């Protein structure tokens, strides 16, 4: 029987991408690509809930619109992509 490896994660010097939780990753992604903090007439404010922002992102990416941070959505957020925002404010 194989003994499961006990993985230890380390911080590599010079690594630009830090270990972050899925929630942190999602928040960063939704902000970076314009799904959160939509510009309103009254100024910059979180005009949409996280769930609605997720739904919008899921629609843009052709995923099932669950409004939840499911595995498919996290996987999509980890894919290499263009840096141009999806939602322009």
């Amino acid at each position, binding site marked *: 029987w194989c003994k499961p*490896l006990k*993985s*230890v*994660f*380390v911080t*590599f*010097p*010079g*690594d*630009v*991408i830090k*270990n972050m939780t899925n929630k942190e990753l999602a928040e960063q992604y939704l902000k970076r*690509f314009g799904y959160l903090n*939509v*510009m309103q*007439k009254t100024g910059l404010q979180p005009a949409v809930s996280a769930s609605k922002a997720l739904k*919008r992102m899921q*629609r*843009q*990416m*052709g995923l099932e619109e669950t409004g939840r941070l499911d595995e498919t959505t996290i996987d*999509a957020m*980890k*894919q*290499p*992509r*263009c*840096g*141009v925002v*999806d*939602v*322009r*404010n």
Partner: protein
Amino acid sequence: YQTFDGDLKWNNKDVTYRILNYSPDMESSLIDDAFARAFKVWSEVTPLTFTRLYDGTADIMISFGKANHGDPYPFDGKDGLLAHAYPPGEGMQGDAHFDDDEFWTLGTGPAVKTRYGNSDGAMCHFPYTFDGKTYTTCTTEGRTDDLPWCSTTADYDNDKKFGFCPSELLYTIGGNSNGAECVFPFVFLGETYNGCTTEGRSDGYRWCATTNNFDQDKQFGFCPSRDTAVIGGNSEGEPCHFPFTFLENTYTSCTSEGRSDGKLWCGTTASYDKDQKWGFCADRGYSLFLVAAHEFGHALGLDHSNIQDALMYPMYKYVETFSLHEDDVEGIQYLYGPNPDTKPPKPTTTPSPPGPTPETEPTEEPTRKPTIPTTPHPVDPSADACQMEMFDAITEIQGKLHFFKDGQYWKMTGKDHKGLKGPYPMADMWPALPAVIDTTFEDHLTKKIYFFSGTRFWVYTGQNVLGPRTIEKLGLPSTLSRVEGAVQRGKGKVLLFSGENYWRLDVKAQIIDKGYPRYTDLVFGGVPTDAHDVFLYKGHTYFCRGRFYWRMNSRRQVDRVGYVKYDVMKCP
């Protein structure tokens, strides 16, 4: 497809570009070629031409950079963000930036073009055999001068075809030494260096002196990456050192241990634990051609598409045989029109069996007689449009604005309310329609008039009518109770609005385009999401709620909010 707000585009058909610098990952001629092919993707379907400039300011300035590279949008190391580009315009607008922490290839692993040897600059052939042994990278085996080489056919032993691989011992890139090779050791700020270094630079690029004393001669160049080099980390350009130790375990190949993202890495010295020197192992890399074609789409005025197979979809996907998706073609031709020199491609799909095409597939026969009797609705000839609080639908037909309300309609023939003619009974002109319609539009190409009421629609060509048909036939969801607005967009496309969503109808194909619905407020920011009517008039999109309208210009800015009665109809 999406265009940028205001349909930003180049006004000149001859667009210029300039390559400001090169990635060390690929030979410069391969990079030149990848960019040229990426431009060709777009020039084949539009009247645009692309001319390369070697100095001065070009419309599209192309550069490679890492992390903070001089604009407000830093890159993020290997993977993640690959590149970005700006929509057409002056200054930085139109420019394209590529993240040089990526491994740039042709999409399938190191793309190694040789120099010298006897293969006329052919690409390395991996794997190849030399002296009975198989090689998957360039090697220095068989040489005493340490120059890496490869076979350009599968079997060096038989074919004897070879060339030299990128190496700082062979040439440098950029700098001021005209491509001369590095000289080792060299002196920089009093220190002696035996290899390429990133010292003295903040951008992470490896360089070397091309004489033995930089302090004195100031001659330098950037080092090309060897195909065996690691990417990123803190040892860019160094080869993996096998075996190496990590957390006291010994590794003889790249590993993902220690990382939560599963990426393969290696130590570049015998002990990571002691030296902490590491980098990512070379992988398939990203196709510079595919990424550049996408970015140039932005530089020409296309925003992201949500069609997964479209080039303008935001995520990277490698495809071996690339062809532009029809969504991309429609998008770029919406901005610039088709290439007059290109014949339409032959259909690649299996021809449909003979039979009705979507355009000629009515569920009901064309008839001059109404299929559904119009609900009788008395028309009061004295009814004044200016007394109406709101209308069921407003649209422009044959250049005249029409106002529909409860089985009657008015048309505006002049500039103000004095030019309002009517009311006319709808049953006289369009007898098949019910009294109350939700929206209507005239197809600019065919002059057919579409009417929507509840879940049904009718199409009038003169006095001939098709319908009613259910809106589901157009690909709209069965849950949709009505279509509230319609806006013609480009040739043969119409946006249909309902609730907080809109869809794009391909009028010719009679089907909703892929990638819809979309949220109205994402594209049409600042208008009410509960508009009961949306229509196009003199290039402006009007969103109506009650007595009020929100007018949006072609740059998708709300430039006026007012009363339908006073501002549009000019009622006293």
